[in-house]
């Protein structure tokens, strides 16, 4: 994948991302100063955006160590390429796209061919959600614990987790996800549905889905 081209293309921002990323006071000045090599401006941009970038990496990768490495890579990339930012989209949206593309490239390098989700990152039979409706006395409604959900998401198979995070957490539309992952919109919908079914299954059996705190060593 041509990361350079993808990440620097200032397409129409994802609606969900854009709504969640209003302009930040002082950001525009910091961007212009950073373009001119102002070290303190880089510091400010890092301080302003480190948590969003890191959280995105953590959700997509489900692993603290890899998330920190990718956060580092994202900002190194940003520092090298900030001169090409033209302000046609929100800076946070541009950085968000850059980060998503870097993570996807990272996963491809690890052997996850995201080009065909159907064939390469569909989970094994035992990972796939069970195809039953379940009993009503185990309803989750109103009782989904955030920490339990974080752990369950981190334990999802990579393909499920990717689509779930991009759609339900980050607010991308199915057509945008399909473009990013180079799959069909139907596949994106299907993966999202399976991800939610799997999460339901995991959340109804918390003792079986429990992971060590901090998402360590979750297979990606």
């Amino acid at each position: 994948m041509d990361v350079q081209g993808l990440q620097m293309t200032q397409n129409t921002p994802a609606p969900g991302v854009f709504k969640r990323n209003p302009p930040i006071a002082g950001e525009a000045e910091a961007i212009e100063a950073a373009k001119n090599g102002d070290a303190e401006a880089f510091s400010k941009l890092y301080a302003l955006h480190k948590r969003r970038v890191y959280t995105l990496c953590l959700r997509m990768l489900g692993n603290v160590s890899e998330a920190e490495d990718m956060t580092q890579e994202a900002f190194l990339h940003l520092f090298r390429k900030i001169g090409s930012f033209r302000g046609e989209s929100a800076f946070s949206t541009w950085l968000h796209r850059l980060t998503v593309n870097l993570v996807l490239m990272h996963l491809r390098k690890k052997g996850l061919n995201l080009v065909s989700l159907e064939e390469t990152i569909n989970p094994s039979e035992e990972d796939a959600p069970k195809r039953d409706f379940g009993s009503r006395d185990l309803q989750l409604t109103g009782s989904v614990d955030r920490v339990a959900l974080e752990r369950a998401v981190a334990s999802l198979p990579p393909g499920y987790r990717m689509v779930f995070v991009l759609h339900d957490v980050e607010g991308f539309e199915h057509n945008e996800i399909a473009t990013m992952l180079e799959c069909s919109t139907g596949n994106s919908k299907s993966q999202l549905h399976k991800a939610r079914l799997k999460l339901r299954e995991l959340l109804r059996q918390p003792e079986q889905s429990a992971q060590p705190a901090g998402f360590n060593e979750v297979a990606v």
Partner: protein
Amino acid sequence: MSGDNFPDFDKMTPADFEKYLPDFFANGDGHVSTDPRLQTFLKNNPDCAALVRDLEAIAEHAKSLFEPTEPSDAVWSGIQDKLKLQGPEDDELPVAQTV
């Protein structure tokens, strides 16, 4: 998928419902439980209704995962170290000292 491709909502079986559920979610802004076309079916199939409520709850709570998390200080240190090791063509890049 257009609405024309959906099954007859009055004659739909739970298996049909399961098959089309991803599209119901995708086409209904994520609110299947309030889709007027499905009210009769969901009333008559409480297990399907429970499934829908659970999946909607998961989707709703997923938004809470958007809340940012702080990376460790090692990330910034790593960035500074790598910037210092850049080649000559990258020497113009500044090395910020503080965050």
